[in-house]
């Protein structure tokens, strides 16, 4: 441990990058016997505060559990807990829903996500996956994914699986994911295609007939004119675009892979400070447009795999591939083939697993620096910024970074990556032409071409993964999602160091990173510790506040035909919940820039204090009230009178069948919850306290210093005082309820809702 702490971050990164083994006595940061400051919560409130950071909400059961085990052991148990996935569940559900005459919809997936968040055992994994999904964003708010329920469920599971894995694996699976391929349009991304035209070499020379049309003055390079009846090597006169027009790599994914999923826009120190270019006074960029163009050339040739007949949820989904194993990479028809879906009872849901399993390389469409006929392309290593071109013919050109023998990717501050073409050669027939291969081609050629494609993608991933920026970008965003919007630079640096090296020489170990986030003193120091910054913590994500209310206070889902949660009312429907109320939707961000941006600053006091407030980007006059109204709708679901459920009456019978509700037993089981119409001052104080512990993590302001005189505002202060006065002086009498406990249940829910929409509850500290 001490040796690691003496090594700077850069040296350790260098050691990893050059493959040096660390000495045997290097140990992981966090091993048995490690004593974590504040590692055993001293109070229920501190335990809940931790659980509100590490789970979707503290519960009556989890608070004593973490107090008994201590935080490190609790985290280890969570890491060991089996993962709760969505896709297999939804595939099984698809069969039963289809049989009943319903298609599988995104609403099914959203309810499943809510169910796992509220009731799943692997809470920490799911919370981390939720954070990762806001960094590496794919979304069903996209024409290519809005109808793909199983694909989005698999994207969810990809995040869940990788939450405690390695970040490089997450990036690699993202690059090969058809979901990301559709979202950022690198599915079926194709290399530049240009066509060589050659000089006439057959006597009589220069008798070309097509003299007026640029580009057609010359001949097909494999034709008899160009080769003088196959006696001469063809000589390229110029290139032209295919008759169907430009085929060029789409740059969408290459850009976001760098900007959002790994290195970001500006070079950073390991504490997130930007590295300023002294010439401009601005942050030194990590990449430029040329890098995007070249990276997009690397990310070409990826499309769905073809794995033949498969069985999903007991149903056969067949697919004819015409190939087996790696030979499928040379069946170019499959590049354009979309794996089928399976309708049951004329309803949709199941799809062939090729639709969501990793894509494969198709060398025919992957950029090798050679054209279709096998000639090396004309570009040389470009030195010019965007605007440079390679002229093909008059009026035709292809963009800067165009194919040449070398693809050079340079990132600011990092070692450049250089990829050479498959093998050198200028003429047809002197080198492997990956375009012309099929399943019957020589094995050595197929291996070379496939390996070139795969290793190019791998090398690009390595370049981005190993860039120092990636550690600090991941560290900062994970802290922002779980702990605090404005971590100190030192906190970011500590977490980035854990990313760079988990203590055992491994870079990108998410378990080490998550532990570094949660164990850090800045996260663990108790509330009220004077060393805490005033503005530590974060605004809660609006959706997560509702999830917590369900989880922390014991709501139960509907059960038939599957566990459903949300009640759709107040302008929300099965298509629009939850974004209608919370501006957030599981795997449904409005764009690849997530629901809010990491650097958003609310104008006014927050920006004056130089704080960022990402979640406040989606909380405004309209949305704050929409959220408050939906919370009321969900809290009072199944209760009250009239068509709008409300808390003005008891739980209805029969019980709800298609949405969640708070069972009477859950409310009665709260401290101070079961006293009917004869509740004492202690009962009311206890009820307020349990809300403070579970929902506020102990942060509720004020004290109750004079229980017998609720109106004593000198001694009954803060939010506590207001809530106490509400219970003791306003919510009195029977409310007309015949059953005394029904009165109390209504009081509990009124109190819970008011607490949930209070300013202090909008914060997680």
């Amino acid at each position, binding site marked *: 441990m001490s040796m690691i702490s003496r090594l700077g971050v850069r040296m350790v990164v260098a050691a990893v990058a050059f493959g040096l083994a660390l000495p045997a006595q290097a140990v992981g940061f966090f091993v048995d016997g490690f004593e974590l400051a504040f590692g055993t919560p001293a109070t229920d409130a501190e335990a809940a505060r931790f659980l509100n950071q590490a789970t979707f909400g503290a519960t009556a059961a989890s608070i004593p559990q973490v107090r008994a085990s201590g935080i490190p052991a609790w985290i280890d148990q969570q890491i060991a807990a089996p993962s709760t996935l969505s896709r297999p569940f939804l595939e099984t559900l698809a069969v039963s829903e289809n049989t009943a005459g319903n298609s599988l919809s995104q609403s099914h997936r959203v309810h499943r996500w809510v169910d796992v968040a509220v009731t799943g055992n692997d809470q920490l994994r799911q919370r981390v996956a939720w954070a990762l999904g806001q960094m590496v964003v794919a979304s069903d708010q996209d024409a290519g994914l809005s109808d793909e329920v199983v694909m989005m469920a698999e994207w969810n599971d990809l995040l869940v699986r990788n939450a405690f894995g390695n970040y490089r694996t997450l990036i690699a699976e993202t690059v090969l994911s058809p979901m990301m391929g559709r979202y950022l349009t690198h599915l079926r991304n*194709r290399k530049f295609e240009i066509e060589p035209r050659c000089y006439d070499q057959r006597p009589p020379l220069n008798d070309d007939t097509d003299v007026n049309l640029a580009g057609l003055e010359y001949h097909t390079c494999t034709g008899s004119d160009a080769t003088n009846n196959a006696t001469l090597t063809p000589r390229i006169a110029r290139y032209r675009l295919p008759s169907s027009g430009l085929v060029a790599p789409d740059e969408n994914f290459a850009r976001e892979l760098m900007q959002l999923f790994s290195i970001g826009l500006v070079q950073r120190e390991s504490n997130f400070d930007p590295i300023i270019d002294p010439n401009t006074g601005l942050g030194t960029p990590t990449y430029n447009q040329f890098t995007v163009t070249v990276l997009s050339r690397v990310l070409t040739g990826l499309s769905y795999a073809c794995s033949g007949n498969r069985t999903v949820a007991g149903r056969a989904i067949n697919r004819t591939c015409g190939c087996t194993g790696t030979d499928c990479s040379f069946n170019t028809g499959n590049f354009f083939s979309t794996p089928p879906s399976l309708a049951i009872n004329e309803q949709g849901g199941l799809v062939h697993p090729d639709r969501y399993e990793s894509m494969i390389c198709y060398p025919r469409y992957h950029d090798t620096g050679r054209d279709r006929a096998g000639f090396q392309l004309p570009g040389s290593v470009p030195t010019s910024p965007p605007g440079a*071109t390679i002229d093909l013919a008059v009026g035709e050109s292809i963009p800067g970074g165009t194919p040449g023998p070398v693809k050079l990717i340079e990132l600011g501050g990092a070692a450049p990556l250089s990829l050479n073409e498959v093998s050198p050669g200028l003429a047809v027939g002197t080198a492997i032409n990956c375009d012309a291969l099929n399943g019957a081609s020589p094995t050595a050629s197929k291996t070379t071409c496939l390996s070139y494609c795969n290793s190019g993608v791998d090398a690009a991933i390595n370049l981005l993964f190993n860039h120092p920026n990636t550690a600090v970008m991941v560290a900062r965003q994970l802290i922002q999602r779980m702990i605090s919007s404005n971590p100190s630079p030192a906190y970011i640096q500590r977490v980035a160091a854990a990313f760079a090296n988990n203590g055992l020489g491994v870079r990108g170990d998410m378990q080490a990173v998550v532990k570094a986030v949660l164990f850090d003193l800045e996260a663990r120091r108790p509330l009220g510790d004077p060393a805490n910054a005033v503005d530590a913590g974060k605004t809660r994500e609006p959706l997560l506040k509702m999830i917590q209310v369900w989880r922390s206070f014991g709501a139960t889902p509907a059960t038939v035909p599957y566990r459903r949660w949300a009640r759709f009312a107040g302008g929300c429907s099965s298509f629009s919940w939850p974004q209608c109320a919370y501006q957030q939707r599981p795997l449904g961000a409005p764009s690849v820039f997530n629901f809010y941006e990491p650097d958003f600053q609310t104008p006014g006091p927050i920006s004056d204090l130089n704080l960022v407030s990402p979640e406040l980007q989606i909380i405004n006059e309209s949305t704050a009230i929409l959220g408050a109204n939906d919370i009321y709708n969900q809290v009072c679901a199944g209760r009250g009178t009239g068509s709008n459920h409300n808390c003005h009456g008891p739980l209805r019978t029969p019980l709800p069948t298609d949405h969640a509700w708070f069972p009477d037993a859950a409310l009665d089981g709260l401290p101070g919850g079961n006293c009917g119409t004869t509740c004492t001052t202690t009962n009311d104080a206890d009820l307020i306290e349990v809300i403070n512990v579970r929902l506020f993590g102990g942060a509720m302001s004020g004290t109750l210093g004079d229980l017998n005189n609720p109106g004593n505002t000198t001694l009954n202060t803060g939010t506590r005082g207001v809530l106490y006065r509400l219970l003791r002086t306003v919510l009195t009498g029977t409310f007309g309820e015949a059953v005394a406990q029904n009165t109390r249940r209504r009081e509990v829910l009124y109190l819970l809702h008011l607490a949930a929409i209070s300013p202090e509850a909008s914060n997680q500290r």
Partner: protein
Amino acid sequence: MSKILTSRRAFLQAGCGVVACGGAQALFPQLGLIPAALAGTPAAGYKALVCLYLDGGNDAWNMLIPGGDAAHTKYVAARNGIYNPTAGNGGGLALPRHTGAGFVSGQTPPSSLSIAGGQYGVNSFCPEMATLYGQGRLAFLPNIGPIVEPTTVAAFNNRRRPPQLYSHNDQTNLWHIGSGSSTQVTQGWGGKVVGRVALPASATNGLPPTITLSGQTRFLSGVEDGGVPLFSFALSTSGTAPATSLTNYGSTNATANQFQIERRAHLQQLLDAASPQAFSNEYRSIVDRSLQLADFVINPAIAGIPAPDPVNGGGSTGFVWPSGNSLADQLRQVARMVRISTTQPDNAGFVSPIGANRQVFFVRLGGFDTHDGQITSTGATGHHLLLQRVSQAVDSFYKAMLAIGRSNDVTLFSASEFGRTINSNGNGSDHAWGSLQFVVGGAVNGGNVYGRYPTIVLNNSLTGSVSDGANQGECFQRGQFIPTTAVDQLGATLARWMGVSDVDIPTIFPNIDNFVTGPFANPVSSPSFANFSRIVPGLMNGVA
């Protein structure tokens, strides 16, 4: 195969090198360099700006296409031919000429609509825009975009240019900021304009002069007179309660029982208690402001307007608001807000609880990032459906302003982060730079094209070789046009119209004189650039 070079080359960021990024304007918020606000003067009367943001990068070269025979032919060639899947050209992005050239019934999209004597054609799905142009109420601005100083293809490496070209959020920020040097500026020109000329929220019953129908936006961020920060107020598109009201808390609920009213009172106690913590405090003020304005100002005012209110269309007004059109929903709300924001003598004795003098609104329509599926049929689908929605919504909005007598006082302008590549990527287009926008209103000298409509070709440089006689505009290899009108210039024109004095313009648009007195602000250095002036001359009544 893959080889990591061991020698590191000095990394020169071509996108932001020594001379590239706006000089020394370091505006990182943490360096505390938010420009100090000059004292403003509330302007007389009422005017409003509406920013219509087309999110994703609108392919506006298909909103207004070339109309001349030669120009249209070049356009068709550059855009990979007229869209015609039946003839095997499903990847083509070009549209038929207004004369019908290229139109094949049932196979291609309809011919464009002639304006300006046939010099241009408006997309056939935007007939309302063509009509407004003909009425002199709509103007087009071709080849406008974020730019730091006039530049050319030949001089591209030697002049300053905006950072992070082709990146959505950066270019969006530059449009909102109103100058092209840095994306780090925290305020937008909409907020800065009202900061100069609008009454503060304290004088308009708490309603700020900046109002959004589509989320927080940098465009509306600014400071009021004296440096008080400006909060933009968010409205919903709800017909009954545009200022969202808290349900079941007894504020405006007519059947509220005693407990609802008291619960509301206790909520108010929580909202009245300031917190030492900035995040809780912000949430507190958001909710408090929202409830006050909703329950006591906006919703009662809207409900209190005597019916039938012409702003809602129908009846004898001669227009209706289109349904199923989220942009129309937003603009209808803007129209209602304009209605209630001032006391108008014709409004049957309605006294506005707001009394605003200047307002800036923000509305947005998404879906314009048409990398895929830009044209998917001959009908109103894909990009054409979006354009149709824009045209119909803007038309209804203008007619609503006419109906309430505010057409001369309200100006709507479009904005979008960039245009799109001229040539196809197979079934769509990718990110480019200069695009085309439009401005609508009674104060607009419409029926004109302000700026230089470029020849639509690929890879044109006037300062090098000329391609195929293309003599307007310069672009890169996929038709990414270098803007010949700056966002700053449009912003300055609208700011002047709103009452900002010419002397204050550089405070809001610090680069504005790069286009007037700067070293490249002359036809020799920058042959394509449209106007070497702070404003777009002639665009707005009264702004010369």
